[in-house]
């Protein structure tokens, strides 16, 4: 990257001496970096989408900041240099909209549902969601305050059961960690988390989660200095290529 910038810096004055038309072209597409604030669960997919985007858009670099959606929103509200915001839930995006930090409407680009993750050997013989109502099964879920926890509450309501969780964690990665380490017999995590964890966990689909779908919206940030490029990136995520990357990771259509 450094070399590329250096090369460009050398090229601009050179072309200025030689050819007027070339000079204009160089002036039209200076090196631009757009900063994307995206939910932690999008780390792998957005990194890949960013790579594809850069390959197709000369002169535009995409930088990412991944964290919990509400953390990111708080940072943007405090004036963090974000150009695009992608949240893991509609609620956070609505809050962002109400706070006036967004430019234009948000577009939904993916969805996610919950699944049961167990250690590969499934020590508690979990087969259905109903099994988690058993106090002998040590289940870990997200706290209701975070999106994956809100979804867990929804799933329990849909199934009319109450899971006596041994821990309500801060994030879905915390839940997954407790399952991978074998401390928990089961955890409620997203389908994409189970897929990303590979053979470190086993996944059990839960039909009850079909009605509790978590939608991911994306929107350009109002104060962005690169509003145009920000919109182009958001459209790229929503578009065919973005969808393909997300689908491959297990995300559902929006």
């Amino acid at each position, binding site marked *: 990257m450094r070399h590329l910038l250096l090369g460009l810096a050398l090229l601009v004055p050179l072309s200025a001496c030689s050819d007027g038309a070339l000079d204009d072209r160089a002036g039209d597409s200076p090196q631009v970096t757009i900063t994307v604030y995206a939910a932690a669960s999008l780390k792998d997919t957005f990194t890949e989408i960013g790579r594809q985007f850069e390959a197709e858009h000369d002169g535009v670099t995409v930088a990412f900041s991944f964290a919990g959606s509400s953390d990111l929103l708080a940072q943007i509200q405090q004036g963090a240099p974000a150009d695009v915001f992608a949240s893991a839930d509609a609620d956070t995006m609505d809050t962002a909209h109400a706070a006036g930090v967004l430019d234009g409407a948000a577009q939904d680009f993916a969805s996610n549902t919950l699944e049961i993750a167990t250690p590969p050997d499934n020590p508690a013989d979990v087969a259905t969601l109903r099994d988690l109502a058993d106090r002998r099964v040590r289940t870990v879920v997200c706290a209701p305050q975070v999106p994956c926890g809100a979804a867990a509450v929804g799933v329990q309501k849909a199934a009319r059961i109450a899971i006596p969780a041994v821990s309500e964690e801060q994030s879905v990665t915390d839940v997954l960690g407790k399952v991978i380490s*074998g401390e928990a017999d089961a955890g409620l995590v997203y389908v994409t988390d189970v897929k990303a964890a590979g053979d470190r966990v086993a996944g059990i689909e839960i039909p009850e989660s079909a009605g509790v779908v978590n939608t991911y919206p994306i929107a350009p940030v109002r104060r962005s200095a690169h509003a145009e490029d920000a919109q182009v990136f958001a459209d790229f995520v929503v578009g065919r290529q973005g969808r393909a990357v997300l689908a491959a990771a297990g995300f559902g259509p929006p």
Partner: protein
Amino acid sequence: MATGSSGLPRWIFAPAAVGALFIVLPLGAMASRVDWGAFPTLITSDSSQAALGLSLRTSAASTVLCILLGVPMALVLARTTFRGQSIVRSLVLLPLVLPPVVGGIALLYTFGRRGLLGETLDVLGLQIAFSTTAVVIAQTFVALPFMVVSLEGALRATGQRYDVVAATLGARPTTVLRRVTLPMVLPGLAAGTVLSFARALGEFGATLTFAGSLEGVTRTLPLEIYLQRETDPDAAVALSLVLVAVAILVIGLVRGSRSATP
């Protein structure tokens, strides 16, 4: 406070004041954000009370553990010489510099269900993961060095002369320890106790990693603050202030008792 500056150059007060501001200003900024009208309701919600109560109980328990384990460790380190002592001392201090999450992971692989001691403990009917015991273990792990460091420093500073005199007068080692050594380092012991308690009170990372987070069982005040921040930043700020107040109170207590018995 304003007793003679014993010839310090004047310019030294400027950076000292900047340093003090650096600590006080953020706390003041936080206090200025508190919605005082809603403060009582914010800090008296059931989950806040459960978190504060749990924090005080577990911190007290881990402080007792720090005294039981830390005092002998400090005595051995200060009063004996053995091979590899400096290595042992460095290892004891390690939790001070480790990121808390590393401590949590280490504890997980020791006391966790599939950890080093986990199966043995399981056979004995002890389930540590996701229990209040796990919180106390995490707090003790990070707080213990504070006890050892404070007390070892005090022991080295007072020296061994009185112990030797007492021994030559016929006192047995345990008597010397109880009647001479420990009373002499009481301020150091008090400082270590308070620092351990304060550190346990603020413990976050190791607890989250090792113990989990469940109201009334493992969700201590720092964890509650972190969780509240997601949905109710006002409550998070109010609870943060409570934590600061409790910490100041604890530190003030020992300051008071130390200046009373110089």
